[in-house]
Structure formats: C-alpha cells, structure tokens
C-alpha cells in the first residue's frame, strides 16, 4: 500500500511550517528527507505518525498504520536491560517466547547479543542507539520513522550505526521516512532523497538513487556530482 501525505497545511500561530505539502513514501524504500534545521522536518514526521493533526490535507493509507521510531536520543528505559527494552515494545503484540526470540534476533543483528543483559547506563552512546534501532525493527511497524538518529555520536560510530541500519533494512525492507540535515547521510541511506526548502517547506528536488550500497560509502567518489548538486541547491 502506498503511503502519502497530500496537500498538507500546518501552522503554529503565525508560523507557516507546511503549506500544501505532498509527498509519497514508496513501500520497502528509504525516503531521506533532507532539509535545514528548523524547516519542519520533525513536524512532518509527527503529522505522518498522526501525533499532530494537520490543519488541512490528507494522510492517505496511514489511518491504521503502525509506526516505529528511532529518535535523536535512544530513549531507553534506564531500569531495563537491552533485551528487556526491546521486548518492552513487543509485549502488546507477542507472547513471551516469541518476543524474546524476536528481541534476541534483532539485538544479535546489531551486534549486541553479548550486551543483552546490560542496562543503558552500562552501554556506550553508540550501543544505546543500536538498541534503539533493534527496537524499531523488532516492533511490527508498517512505517519506520528516523528523526536524525545518527547525530549524537562521532563519525566512525555513526557510520557503524548506519551500516547496522542498512543491514537490518536489507534483511527486512521497511518503508522508512528518514529526516536529516546531513547530505552524506541522506546519500548513504536513502533510496530516494527529497530536498526541502526553509519554512514553509517546499520540495526543491527529488532524486532516486540506484547505486548499490558499496558505491555510496563515505569517501566514495561515485556520488560526488550528486553531492555537489545537492550542496549547491541547499546553499543557494
């Protein structure tokens, strides 16, 4: 089923954040939404998830959709272990055996099988965010929302996290809406890259990326012309 935001308008007081915004999210693909800080990316995700009602416009195919979130910060329950944190979001949907198996499988996929009994404060920032990725993929969601989840860690850890995400996405392709202000992140993760203007957000450009993952890596020259074009667009 295609998911679409159609002709969405949203203002906060006098501030118009979205005015007549339309965007579709092809299933099984990563739609990377690239835009400057404060252009309304988070508002867009909130409207998509149904957390914030639009002033007008339509959310198509989204009425009964279930959403997974990866936030900017991991948002793990401090008193629960890594495994329990992943299991927590499965409690409503699965029996004890199945949710344990599922949680363990996802933690293993992000390389945290050994750390499953550790609590968040015993994990590094990168590991915590990995748990949060595992949780998002473990949860039976139709759409995965990623709100700049790779921002708070150093470059090496960030690339590791993104690789974890790509592994998970390759194994179990989800419809993903990924907002970021980092060009390189959008190019590395996105199947489709959408470039937004400043408020009210308009779509400046839409690029489909067909290159395989190896050729999109950080430092790879294959996308340098696309990258340069995006920078020109963003910097004006």
């Amino acid at each position, binding site marked *: 089923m295609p998911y679409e935001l159609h002709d969405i308008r949203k203002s906060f007081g006098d501030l118009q954040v979205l005015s007549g915004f339309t965007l579709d999210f092809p299933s099984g693909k990563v739609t990377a939404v690239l835009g400057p800080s404060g252009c309304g990316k988070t508002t867009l995700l909130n409207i998509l998830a149904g957390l914030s009602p639009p002033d007008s416009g339509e959310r198509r195919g989204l009425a009964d959709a279930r959403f997974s979130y990866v936030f900017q*910060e991991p*948002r793990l*329950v401090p*008193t629960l272990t890594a495994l*329990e944190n992943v299991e*927590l979001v499965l*409690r*409503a949907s699965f029996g004890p055996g199945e949710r344990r198996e599922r949680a363990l499988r996802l933690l293993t996929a992000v390389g945290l099988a050994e750390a499953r009994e550790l609590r968040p404060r015993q994990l590094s920032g990168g590991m915590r965010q990995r748990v949060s990725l595992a949780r998002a993929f473990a949860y039976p969601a139709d759409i995965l929302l990623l709100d700049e989840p790779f921002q708070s860690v150093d470059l090496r850890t960030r690339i590791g996290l993104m690789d974890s995400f790509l592994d998970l996405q390759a194994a179990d392709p989800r419809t993903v809406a990924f907002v970021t202000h980092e060009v390189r992140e959008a190019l590395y993760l996105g199947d489709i890259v959408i470039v937004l203007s400043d408020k009210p957000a308009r779509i400046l450009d839409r690029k489909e990326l067909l290159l395989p993952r190896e050729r999109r890596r950080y430092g790879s020259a294959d996308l340098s012309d696309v990258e340069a074009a995006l920078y020109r667009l963003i910097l004006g």
Partner: protein
Amino acid sequence: MRKSADGKPSRGIPPAAAAGLGALALLLVWEFAARSIASEIVLPSPVQVARTAAELFPTARFLAALQATFLRGMASFGISMALGGAVGLACGLSPVFAAALAPALTVIRATPVLAVILLALIWFPSGTVPVFAAVLMAFPVVVADLRQGVLSVDSKLLDMAQLFRLRKRDRLRSVYIPAVAPHLASASHGALGLCWKVVVAGEVLSQPARALGTGMQGARVQLETAEVFAWTLAGILLCALTDAAFKLIQKKDPLALRAA
C-alpha cells in the same frame, strides 16, 4: 536517589566508628552536664536513665503503652501514605488539581502541630487525636514527594511509550513506577519520622489510657525526670527501629517493583 557506594575514598576513620565516637561524645556531654547541674530532677545522668528504663520497660503498663503507641504510629503512617500517595499522584498528573489543592496544603503545613492537636481534642476521642494529628501533619509531606515523583517521569520516555503503543500496565511498570519509587521511599521515610513525633505529642495532650505520651506526662507531673527520659527513649527507639526495618526492606529490592 541512588547511593554512590564507590564514591569517596575512605580517609582514616570508617563511618561506623565515627558514628560510634559521636554517640560516645553525646553521652559524655550528657554525663558532664548532669554532674555539673547535680540535680536528678533537672537532668538525670545517662546511667540513672538507663536504670529507670530497665525497671520501666518490662512492666505491663509500659508494654501496653508501647503497643498502643506503636499501633497508632503505624495506623497514621499507613493512612497518610495511602491518602497522601493518592492525592500526590493526582497532583502530579493534573496541574489543575495541584493548583486547586495548593492553598489547603499551605494552610496545613503552616498550622502549628499543637493547634491541630488542640482542635482534634475537641472533635475526637482521646485515642484518635494523635492519629488524626499525625495523618494531617504527614499528609502534605507525602503529597509533595509523590507529586515530585510523577513530575520526574521522563516525558521523552512517555512519548516513546505512546508511539510504540505500550499497554497501560507496561507503561506503568517501566516508565512511571521506576521514576516514582525513589520518591515513594523518601516520602515514607519522612512520614514515618513525623508520625512518631506527632503521635507522641498528641498522646501527651490527649492522655489515652495506654500511650507513651501518657506515661511521659504522668512521670513529668510527679517530677520523675529520669522516667520522662525513659519514656522518651522508648519513643526514640520506636522511631529508629521502624526506620531501620524500613531501610532493610528497601535494601532487599533497591529498584523496588522494577518490571521483570
């Protein structure tokens, strides 16, 4: 609040020894003061008090009083925790409720304990007066603590819980209870101490047939100062022992009620 057991490097005297020395110093000051005043009616010595206590404590009169006071203390503790807990949670969840209740709580907090006891004397039978006064005094403390507990719940975790559609009981167990539990512990610690003090004060004035406060007052009227001290000692022990018992329960499960 979590204790940092690994916190400070111990320099020289261990804390237990320091506490022991402090207690010894207290006794020495007391002994010294008693010797300089040299009047048993004004200030009996620690040894005199210990002797009086040893005579008093095994008597049936004392044990009945102790039991009655203990029950009053526990009852007022239980009622203030239940009432204050419920109201505190409501205050934390609803700012409107908290604002509406604020004047009443301020009035209760500012009312002198003795004024409450005197009014209670007019309204209630003697055995109930100490319980009523203690509940009223402990109530605002419990409310404030539990409200703080609810306010300390991480709103980002709550958003997470909502987005992943956690069931109510999972939300309660993993987000609310761990945040509120430390505040519940500190509320009960505060309420317990307050309850003992107010219960005994209430008993002194309301004179129930069996009560530590009644014994204390009786001894005072007869100028048996050492016996006043002995009754007081019983009150102190009651407070200290229940507090220790409470800490022991908490230690067994430091994360109290953590979701499995």
